């Protein structure tokens, strides 16, 4: 387990709420990003992130400390993202953009545009392919780690990743985004 995670889990299991909050602080941003990259919607990403931590809180006693906490959390995040996307949300549309940082400097607009184009290309992939791309590129996980999180053989991880990357290459080059 990542340094400190083991102690936090132990403390949280003893009822130390501050320890669980520390786990939330440590991983909330990453989980939110995974959820957003999967769902491309800030409201959905917010809901998914909350559900991930609620489920982690409920299941913490069943967590095996032989594994890495982040792998366990990411596995919950992946499953929750898939469930959320497949299930029709009961949301009433609102156009309040809660995820936009108003302090975004002008010189990062181009980066934001590239990010949006990449997101657009990602959404062109099926969920199976999108998952491995998100875990590989945004979380920089190894084939083996992705295999453990998604629950598929390493060979399948490679196959999906390579196919997805080829599709992204074609999509992004066609859009003229590649530089």
């Amino acid at each position: 387990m990542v340094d400190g995670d083991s102690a936090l889990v132990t403390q949280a299991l003893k009822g130390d709420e501050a320890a669980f909050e520390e786990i939330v602080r440590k991983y909330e941003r990453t989980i939110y990003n995974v959820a957003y990259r999967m769902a491309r919607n800030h409201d959905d990403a917010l809901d998914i992130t909350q559900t991930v931590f609620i489920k982690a809180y409920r299941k913490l006693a069943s967590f095996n400390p032989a594994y890495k906490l982040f792998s366990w959390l990411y596995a919950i995040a992946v499953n929750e993202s898939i469930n959320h996307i497949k299930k029709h949300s009961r949301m009433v549309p609102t156009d309040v953009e809660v995820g936009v940082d108003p302090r975004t400097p002008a010189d990062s607009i181009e980066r934001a545009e590239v990010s949006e184009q990449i997101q657009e290309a990602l959404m062109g992939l099926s969920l199976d392919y999108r998952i491995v791309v998100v875990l590989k590129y945004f979380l920089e996980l190894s084939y083996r780690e992705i295999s453990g999180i998604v629950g598929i053989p390493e060979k399948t991880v490679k196959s999906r990743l390579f196919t997805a990357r080829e599709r992204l290459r074609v999509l992004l080059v066609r859009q003229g985004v590649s530089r």
Partner: protein
Amino acid sequence: MTDERITELMNQEVDGANTADESRELSAYLEEHPEERARLEELRTVGRMFGDAGDVEPPAALHGAIMASLAAERAGELRKRAHQAVTAMSVRSVRPRIGFAFAAGLVSGACLLALVLFAIPGRGPIDPSRLTGTLVSREAQEAVREPVAIQFPGGRGAVRIADVEGGVEVDIALVSDEVVRITLEHGEGLRYGGVRVPGGEEHSISVAPRRVEIMHSGDSRYVVALRSTGGERGAIRLRVSGNDGELFEETVRPRRN
């Protein structure tokens, strides 16, 4: 070399996962097929683009929203345990091995039930004279960045009122024994923008000018979006009412744009 093998070697090269032998195999292939170098470079470019894209900025209210959900979860857990304790006592008390044990069980069950009812606020009868609602000011919320606890006889939860881009977001997580009405009253500078119920529970909502009402029961969470109309936002008044009248009330004045 098959197309499949070329694809595998190129992608592994991009990921830095080729062995020395595999890298040599790829180099030899590219020597013979220089036109394929462009494809390899494009695959690398895709990887760089993802690296350049960076993180998406989460909403400022993310942490507070997660902690509010956890607070509601813990409150629900406590209620469930209390309910199970009461049920277990009832079951035990009706085991009629002998008349004395039955009578003693009934008496002790009744005593323990009374103890649970009065010791745990969430199980007690609603008594408006025991209001203990606390909602700190907007400025204090900014300072602590935490959801604020709502507590009243028969219910508990948490609320966070946050300025977001384009308006105000009111995040309410509530657990209550009885049906209660959550009322949000706001100024002309805001208008109703929608409500999300992350758990997907059934609920009833009514919207009138400058007022949103949600009929709540059980354990639910509501995220109400109030959009700025450009005018004076004014204060937001949050009330929770039950059959016996008002249980919780507080007024918050969000920061101006």
